[in-house]
């Protein structure tokens, strides 16, 4: 059986051509992870401090590993390099001291992440000290400047590609807020000057340098000591820049992980509010199903990629059709023809614009008013100054008055009514959980809504509704079975995890496929707690009554016996009918094809074989069964 890979994860008729699902990520990203590997990164200040999990180095490396895994799963064409500085060993093109570019076989320094890279980075902490080593690179008495060297190496790595087609970033992980603290005098100012110049050079070449500071709760990372100059931060920026130092290392990891993402814009939208007043919004796809990547067809002999060539053939004449510009729809007794332009004209409504139609109270937005993942919009003043101010004002009013906006979005694929729901910012210890902005929820049209609830009405007996007592029992059960702190995205997708575990094992030519834990299975243990069991029993008793088990079984048996009786009768009949033919003879003389499908099925049923397929399939199945 052939499975379309897109089908694997599709429950129903998702439209893969839908523009919304195909994100326009034409630009790729080149990232150099620059990780400070000085002994300070390996210190632990926690009391129970000898676990390596507690070091900043561990936090940095695990953030990188996590982000690499996300990248490889998302099939991005992003390229990364991992570079440690303040190391004992050196490995880089310029042969500069104290900088070590980490890499694995079959991979350039700056390249797409591979299975091996992820595996090695996962295990790097075990061998780091022996292979790469850690030592302070900037010490008094030497003119070495490992930070400068690291930036130079990073910049050289990012020389590849044009700044037009790729975003170039350097992410610097360090817990040292004063890298030149150990030296003094002219040498210090000189070193600082050259390092700043180096950064500026890089920035001028279109490389953005971002700092991911690591700190302990009791000693804040002071950005203004040195890095604010390096990053060009001033005043307000500075305050905004520093994330709240986390209570827990885990929180800091969350914060770093989130900041490692580069926001990707889907598009800019003009939002016309009223009377010619328009503002500009940027839209982002914060939630989209991650699917296993598209397949590539390979030649099974050579394992080399194949390319698919499509040709259009006229069904009537067999002639080759070159790019037919006409489409048709059979209607009444004829074929109504449309040109492609006419069809797109029919679908076109104020393309790219979002037009406000009015506001409604939030309770008008029903649970079933949904068709596909929402899109996030955030204001931008880039082209229209004043957009943000209007957006913030509306956002506040909508939150306060508990209203959402209804707007018409003229997307080219499906012009649609949307609900704009204002979302207030939510911050937790792990950083921003919900960004402030509005979510655009795609509303169904009347054609898209089905009245399935009413489907089975029509008998004269009204269906019962639960009484207060039963509802009370249900409430008790709900209380017992509350998922504390449930977060919407706490589950990893087990099929996707499995998919990539298999691929990773095959890519690394490992024999064992690691087991993936399915996080989505119910908590059996919790369900066997006595409190829960008794609440459940009470609820069951109140809605099902006493003899539920027995009746249920009886119903089951009754049904089963009925269907099995029927099935039995059919197969008996088939055996009988099948006895009327000399199958071996028919098969030998190639006369099976002269029988009808019904007749062939007698044999199949009598021998418990599957009945599916076309006639040829049935015949071949019979022949296989006979051993011919």
């Amino acid at each position, binding site marked *: 059986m052939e499975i379309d890979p897109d089908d694997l994860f599709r*429950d129903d008729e998702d439209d893969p051509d839908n523009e919304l699902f195909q994100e326009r990520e034409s630009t790729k990203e080149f990232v150099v992870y620059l990780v400070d590997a000085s002994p300070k990164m390996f210190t632990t200040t926690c009391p129970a401090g000898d676990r390596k999990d507690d070091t900043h180095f561990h936090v940095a490396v695990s953030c990188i590993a996590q982000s690499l895994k996300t990248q490889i799963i998302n099939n991005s064409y992003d390229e990364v390099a991992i570079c440690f500085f303040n190391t004992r060993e050196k490995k880089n093109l310029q042969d500069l001291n104290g900088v070590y570019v980490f890499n694995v076989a079959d991979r350039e320094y700056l390249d797409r992440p591979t299975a091996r890279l992820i595996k090695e980075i996962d295990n790097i902490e075990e061998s780091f000290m022996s292979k790469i080593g850690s030592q302070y690179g900037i010490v008094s008495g030497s003119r070495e400047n490992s930070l400068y060297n690291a930036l130079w190496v990073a910049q050289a790595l990012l020389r590849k590609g044009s700044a037009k087609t790729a975003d170039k970033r350097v992410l610097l992980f360090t817990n040292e807020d004063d890298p030149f603290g150990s030296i003094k005098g002219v040498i210090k100012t000189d070193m600082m000057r050259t390092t700043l*110049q180096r950064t500026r050079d890089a920035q001028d070449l279109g490389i953005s340098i971002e700092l991911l500071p690591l700190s302990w709760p009791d000693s804040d990372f002071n950005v203004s000591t040195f890095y604010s100059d390096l990053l060009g931060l001033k005043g307000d920026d500075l305050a905004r820049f520093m994330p709240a130092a986390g209570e827990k290392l885990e929180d800091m990891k969350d914060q770093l992980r989130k900041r490692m*993402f580069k*926001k990707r814009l889907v598009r800019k939208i003009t939002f016309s509010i009223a*009377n010619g*007043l328009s503002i500009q919004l940027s839209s982002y796809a*914060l*939630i989209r199903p991650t699917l296993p990547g598209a397949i590539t067809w*390979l030649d*099974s002999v050579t394992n*080399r990629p*194949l390319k*698919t*060539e499509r*040709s*259009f*053939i006229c*069904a009537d*004449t067999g002639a080759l*059709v070159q790019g037919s510009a006409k*489409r048709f729809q059979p209607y*009444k007794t004829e*074929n109504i*023809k449309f040109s492609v332009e006419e069809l797109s*004209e029919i*679908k076109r*409504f104020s393309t790219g614009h979002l*037009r406000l139609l009015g506001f*409604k109270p939030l309770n008008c937005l029903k*649970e*079933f008013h949904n*068709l*596909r993942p*929402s899109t*996030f919009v955030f204001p931008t003043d880039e082209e*229209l100054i004043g957009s943000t101010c*209007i957006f913030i*004002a*509306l956002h506040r009013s909508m939150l306060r008055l508990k*209203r959402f906006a209804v707007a018409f979005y003229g997307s080219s694929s499906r012009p649609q009514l949307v609900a704009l729901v204002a979302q207030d910012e939510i911050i937790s210890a792990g950083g921003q959980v919900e*960004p402030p902005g509005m979510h655009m929820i795609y509303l169904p049209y009347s*054609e*898209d809504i*089905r009245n*399935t609830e*009413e*489907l*089975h009405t029509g008998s004269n007996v009204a269906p019962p509704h639960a009484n207060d007592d*039963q*509802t009370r029992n249900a409430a008790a059960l709900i209380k017992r079975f509350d*998922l504390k702190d449930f977060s919407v*995205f706490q589950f990893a997708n*087990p099929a996707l995890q*499995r998919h990539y575990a*298999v691929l990773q094992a095959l890519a690394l030519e490992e024999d064992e496929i690691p087991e993936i834990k399915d996080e989505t*299975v119910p908590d*059996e243990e919790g369900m066997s707690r006595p409190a829960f069991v008794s609440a459940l029993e009470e*609820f069951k008793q*109140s*809605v099902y009554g006493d003899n539920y088990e027995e009746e249920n079984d009886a119903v089951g048996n009754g049904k089963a016996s009925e269907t099995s009786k029927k099935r039995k009768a059919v197969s008996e009949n088939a055996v009988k009918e099948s006895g009327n033919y000399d199958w071996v003879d028919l098969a030998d003389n190639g006369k099976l094809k002269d029988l009808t499908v019904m007749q062939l099925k007698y044999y199949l049923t009598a021998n418990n074989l599957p009945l599916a397929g076309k006639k040829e399939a049935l015949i071949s199945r019979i022949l296989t069964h006979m051993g011919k």
Partner: protein
Amino acid sequence: MHKALPEIEKVCSMLAEKKLIYSKYDEVAVVLFGTEETENELTKEVGGYEHVVVLQNIKVVDGQLVETLQQLPRGTRDGDFLDAIIVGMDMLIKKYGETYKGKKRLCLLTNAQFPIKYPLEGTKEDQVSTIAEHMNTHGMRMESIVVRGSLTGEANKSVMDENDNLLGIFSKKTCAKLAHVESPTSLLGALRTRKISPVTIFRGDLELSPKMKIKVWVYKKTSEEKFPTLKKYSDKAPPTDKFATHEVKVDFEYKSVEDPSKVVPPDQRIKGYRYGPQVIPISSAEWDAVKFKPEKSVKLLGFSDAKNIMRHYYMKDVNVFIPEPGNTRAILAVSALARAMQDMNKVAILRCVWRQGQGNVVVGVLTPNVSDNDNIPDSFYFNVLPFAEDVREFQFPSFNNFPASWQPNEQQQEAADDFVRMFDLAPPGKEEALQPGLTPNPVLERFYRHLELRSRHPDAAVPPLDETLRMITEPDKELLSQNRSVLDVFRSRFEVKENPKLKKSSRRFLRDKPSGSNEGHADISDEPNSSEYTSAVKVEKVGDATPVQDFEAMINRRDNPQWVGKAIKDMKNKIHDLVEDSYEGDNYPKALECLIALRKGCILEQEPKQFNDFLRTLCVFCQEKALSSFCEFLASKELTLISKTEAIDSEVTDDEARNFLLKSEPKLE
């Protein structure tokens, strides 16, 4: 009613048009009531039933029906909808008898403004109940669309209430749907124009725990009605060929990428899955053996506060969980849970595998749908939630951190409040405008109307949207004019202007910057202020005092790519001068310093050739002018050409680079 008739013509002909495509063998009749004339079988048989006209007897849909529906005659009398219902039922019974249960459908479109006649015996309610029972026994469904509000004139409220009550009986006792519409748009959306027979996605147990299960059926609640897929048209068949299908078949061929002449048969292909840059071949059989295979089941994971599940996390179209029809216990269990969840503001989290062999699990949220109709059991809506991999945690700046100029002031906020409050689509006491359930898809409306038009006028152009459909895509003019003052205040308190910095020309400039060196000869001094990198004094030439610093500053000027070229040129001249002017090598160290700076600059700017050529000519120059001591000096300081490893554009190998100055010495002899 006449006011609503144009829209009724549209919605009814749409129904017929869709039937012509999707259910060609359906049969349709048209009955009018409130007409001057009387024309129906019942009046001939038993008398009465005046002013009811059978405009079209039951027959298979055809083009003529569409045309009939597009030109409904206007009546003159008060309509008695009950008479019309009976006439319609009579026609269905005469034609089909007891057959086609559940497939017989009556669509009643009325303003229900006029009283129905009193029955000969009993009350109106009794009569309606009897008719409703009749409908049930014959398996008929009815949809009543009651047109009200702006679409009808003044009417007697007590009559309308009575009629609403009577029609309500139908919806209580039978499979009848009752909808009130007040605008032309919602009238277009109120009638189901395409019948889709519902199919369950899942029938089985909703497992609260292994010990307690509820029998449920799961259906789709929303599902996008797609734009029809039109076939490609081939005009190759000769026009004389009456049986030509004009269809186009698609043929696929698989060819090796390296050798396009080699065609690979489809069964010799194997699937390759991407993993980073690698493509990993796996056959379907292997894949089946290792892939994730969950068991069919629908299991409860637990309950959570409704506020934990934000609306924007809903991923897909929506399902509905209804208790197994006829199963009282399931109905009760669902009802009890739904009511408790509603009271407590809770939702349930489920893990679902709808079918055996499904490739993945679905985690989603169950929200209560407590029915206010006694005839309909309580149910749940089900929305799919994202997995960890599906969420991108982009970080956005806090609004509070924006500069003060971006923050709305008190007056502005007040104007926004008024605007959000007054620009209201769901004013109390009136129909909520643009309800999803009553708003048709304008694209589909436009397509089917145009299809019908084309069938009669093959050259007709795509017409613009009509007034009614424009209500969906544009703000309501009436609403705008009602709120003129609020809008004007809002408009006047905010200012939006185009960003002057982003003029087209400057945009082009920014874009061209990275590659730009072979652009025309723009005058360097033309762009004095557009520099992003601002140093206090702009260095424009390499001076005598601090040549290295001047050079670095110049090469760092990013306001124009030409500075790089100028810097390199200036520096070369400077070095040349230094060497030439040196007396017993007194300038050598300074020249070396400059050379090192130039070398570095050339590596950074990817201009290795500039440096290498210059060093070569410099050495030749030195040898000619008996300054070879400078070459020796350079060699001793290990200054080399720029090699390929340092700058990719260089044509000099490592060895060549290192040996350049050493080699040049023997030539001296």
